[in-house]
């Protein structure tokens, strides 16, 4: 059984200009111990689709189903959801400085998470905090230091230590390396790769996906357009958007082939396939009818051309 099973997830933000449909019917699953990579450009809905499951998008209407270890997360009372979020699902965000409290020592912040969710004494909570810091390569003695005393890469390690504090079954990392420099990024990727629990990595960086994902889902304009194993995605990309994305990356000196145009507005997304206005291989059917996910179960994509294959 899957650890997390999401079906037909929809996230809508009501705005004065009408409903902004950030996520429009996305289904995926995460198996225990596996890493799922979610890739897409800004506005693709990649972050919102995961954050919505945990009740982290205030003001949005969230519909669909999300079973975590058999329990329905959508519509779950806030208090109950908060318990799961702290103890069984950990989170690592892009910008550690805004996710850490500046006035508390990092050890205290980790220890407090332990105290809230476990029946342990203060001493024991602190020893968990020190142990977790050492696991991410920070000396336990630095537990009494404050976030500003750490560099960017070290803060991201603190975030990982905090996410790991209660031995969660799933960690969600939202653009964990985007704010970091290349050499520090390498350290964090090593660390995330050693975690052992299930991991959802949300990123725009195809290099991160190529490095660590087991399965990958590609999102465009609030929709899932392709799902595949890591190697299959890079070796045999099927959806024209995925192909376009991979061709946009420099490979030596070959001239780049960008995707023409730009992503659609989510207030009034185009009819039919959301990618059709930019698609180099569209057929008359594309603007009219929206393609479902078609093709083999381990590598489906949402493109009408798949029918002819």
């Amino acid at each position, binding site marked *: 059984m899957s650890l997390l099973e999401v079906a037909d997830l929809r996230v809508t933000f009501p705005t004065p200009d009408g409903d902004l449909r950030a996520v429009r019917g996305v289904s995926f699953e995460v198996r225990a111990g596996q890493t799922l990579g979610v890739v897409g450009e800004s506005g693709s809905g990649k972050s919102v689709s995961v954050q919505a499951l945990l009740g982290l998008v205030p003001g949005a209407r969230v519909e669909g189903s999300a079973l975590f270890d058999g329990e329905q997360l959508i519509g779950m009372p806030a208090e109950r959801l908060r318990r799961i979020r702290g103890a069984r699902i950990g989170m690592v965000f892009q910008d550690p400085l805004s996710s850490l409290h500046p006035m508390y020592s990092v050890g205290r912040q980790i220890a407090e998470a332990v105290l809230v969710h476990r029946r342990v004494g203060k001493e024991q909570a602190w020893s968990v905090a020190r142990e977790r810091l050492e696991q991410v390569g920070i000396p336990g003695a630095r537990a009494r230091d404050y976030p500003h005393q750490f560099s960017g890469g070290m803060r991201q390690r603190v975030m990982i230590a905090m996410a790991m504090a209660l031995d969660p079954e799933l960690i969600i990392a939202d653009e964990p390396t985007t704010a970091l420099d290349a050499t520090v990024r390498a350290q964090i990727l090593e660390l995330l790769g050693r975690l052992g629990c299930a991991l959802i990595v949300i990123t725009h960086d195809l290099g991160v996906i190529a490095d660590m994902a087991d399965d990958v889902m590609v999102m465009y304009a609030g929709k899932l357009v392709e799902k595949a194993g890591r190697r299959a995605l890079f070796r045999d990309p099927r959806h024209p958007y995925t192909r376009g994305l991979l061709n946009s990356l*420099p490979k030596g000196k070959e001239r780049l082939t960008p*995707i023409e145009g730009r992503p659609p507005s989510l207030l009034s997304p185009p009819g039919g396939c959301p990618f059709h206005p930019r698609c180099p291989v569209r057929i008359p059917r594309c603007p009219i009818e929206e393609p479902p996910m078609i093709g083999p179960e381990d590598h489906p994509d949402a493109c009408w051309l798949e029918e002819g294959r």
Partner: protein
Amino acid sequence: MSLLEVSDVRKYFPIKSGVFFRREVGRVHAVDGVSLSVEAGETLGVVGESGCGKSTLARCMTGLYEVTSGKITFDGDMRRDVQMVFQDPYGSLNPRRRIGSIIADPLVIHREGTAASRRERVKELMALVGLNPEHYNRFPAEFSGGQRQRVGIARALALNPRLVVCDEPVSALDVSIQAQVVNLLKDLQTELGLTYVFIAHDLSVVRYVSDRVAVMYLGKIVEIAPGEELYERPRHPYTAALLSAASVADPDRPRDRVVLRGDVPSPISPPRACRFHPRCPKAQERCTVEEPLLLGDGHQWACHFPVEPGEHLRSAEPGLEGRAG
């Protein structure tokens, strides 16, 4: 003669303290003794991590910063012939002004032509960078990130410059849009015979656009070489580590990342001698006492114990680290 010559340039920023007297208590050594030349028609790429001084160097080259010491010589009128494209397509355009008037700024400042002829020139520039000239009267908010970057490029080209310094021109853009802007810059270079200094932290983009590449670390150039040479045969251990850490969208690439210890030290009090020695997997006694000079012909590096071809650098132990930052 080279188009632009940078010799032993230093740029320090004072750190002041106190309310009344504003004593200088320290200095940020942003650029610390950089020499290089830019030849007409080439693209010189500059790579490095945040705080290495690449943007400060760019601003010194365009004359936006006065250098603390050293000399920058340009074969021409620097104020006209050297222009800059900035990273942030949101922060670098005044949101209250119309696109047409933003692009016309350099023309107005240099008192070029009449209002009518300037308007014609702006429309010409907009078409050149792939914008619809009819959008002359629109505001920046009506444009996407990629289009705004095109506006920034049009503004930089208004005076027919010879050298354009691009500071992270595509790093704020999505991948599919990045490729559009990079291709545009390449096409403009061929069409107008431009020379570029292209600064970025994305190594694969720099490899794609550059003829030569310089690698900076803590205010210094540690290696400079023709692009392919640098990527295929890096000699400085920092370059080798940086290349191995680069993001590559290839699941079959061998994962022999060289993981360095710690973070980049502070440029306020950089390490002595070789600045890379505290993080270097090859560092020896000599590296802590004697600063290596940037030597060589064509391919230059500043290292006492360069990486030999075929040599494998070892990663730092994943164990504990001391105080950083």
